[in-house]
């Protein structure tokens, strides 16, 4: 089981309590699709992804980014059992969506970059450590049910 210090819990809760889900969700998913264009393979039905500008203006992508970010709420509410919390979502990504689990890491990295831009100097070393620890547990849980 993953151990969380009080400080880590406070940091993670702090980030989420100030989070603009629409803004950060949209920016993170757009950045992922632009920086790692092969991730676009999963978004065939999402309209125009022709270049960075169209991706950034795409409302379907924006909505989906928000949805993904809200998906992290589950981990936030169940920090002591993220593994089981995401068992069903993991199966969904494996069996229905057929997403290569490496993509979770790519999106997590983009989310980190976007949060860093938003928080600026408040994204301290300790904050980054806690945040990346949280995301790596989520990423691991999401990949766990692949078979």
């Amino acid at each position, binding site marked *: 089981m993953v151990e969380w210090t009080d400080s880590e819990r406070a940091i993670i809760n702090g980030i989420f309590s100030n989070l603009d889900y629409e803004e950060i969700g949209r920016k993170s998913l757009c950045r992922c699709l632009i920086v790692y264009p092969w991730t676009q393979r999963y978004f065939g039905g999402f309209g125009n992804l022709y270049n960075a500008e169209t991706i950034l203006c795409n409302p379907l992508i924006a909505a989906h980014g928000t949805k993904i970010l809200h998906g992290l709420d589950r981990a936030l509410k169940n920090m002591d059992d993220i593994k089981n919390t995401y068992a069903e979502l993991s199966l969904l990504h494996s069996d229905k969506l057929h997403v290569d689990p490496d993509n979770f890491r790519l999106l997590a*990295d983009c989310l980190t*970059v976007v949060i*860093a831009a*938003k928080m600026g100097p408040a994204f301290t070393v300790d904050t*980054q450590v806690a945040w990346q620890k949280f995301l790596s547990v989520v990423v691991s849980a999401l990949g766990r049910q692949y078979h």
Partner: protein
Amino acid sequence: MSLSSKQKATVKDFFSKMSTRSDDIGAEALSRLVAVYPQTKSYFSHWKDASPGSAPVRKHGITIMGGVYDAVGKIDDLKGGLLSLSELHAFMLRVDPVNFKLLAHCMLVCMSMIFPEEFTPQVHVAVDKFLAQLALALAEKYR
């Protein structure tokens, strides 16, 4: 995944904008590397203090960033330009190349923190590609 001429221009432009803060970014990036990925401290066992923010870590981060800036100037021939640095990393330092990716990520985070407006997705992809090419050039002599 080589850089287009537009992306090379983007990299040069962004690094030029960044130059007033390049020391900070280098120092911060290495501090974050050893904090977020503690296994990387294994390369610094010869320092009295390899903790994030320590003097040797900050100083070395600045040195590394200097190397990255030097590489920007050699962006048209990274393999040729970084030959001796590659030999250093291959035969003396023997840093596992997976760590280049980890440091690149920390550099990107610092760039994003300090230049949130300028570090657009388009700049991000160009710089990420450049750092990946740099890493490849550094690993050229490994085997």
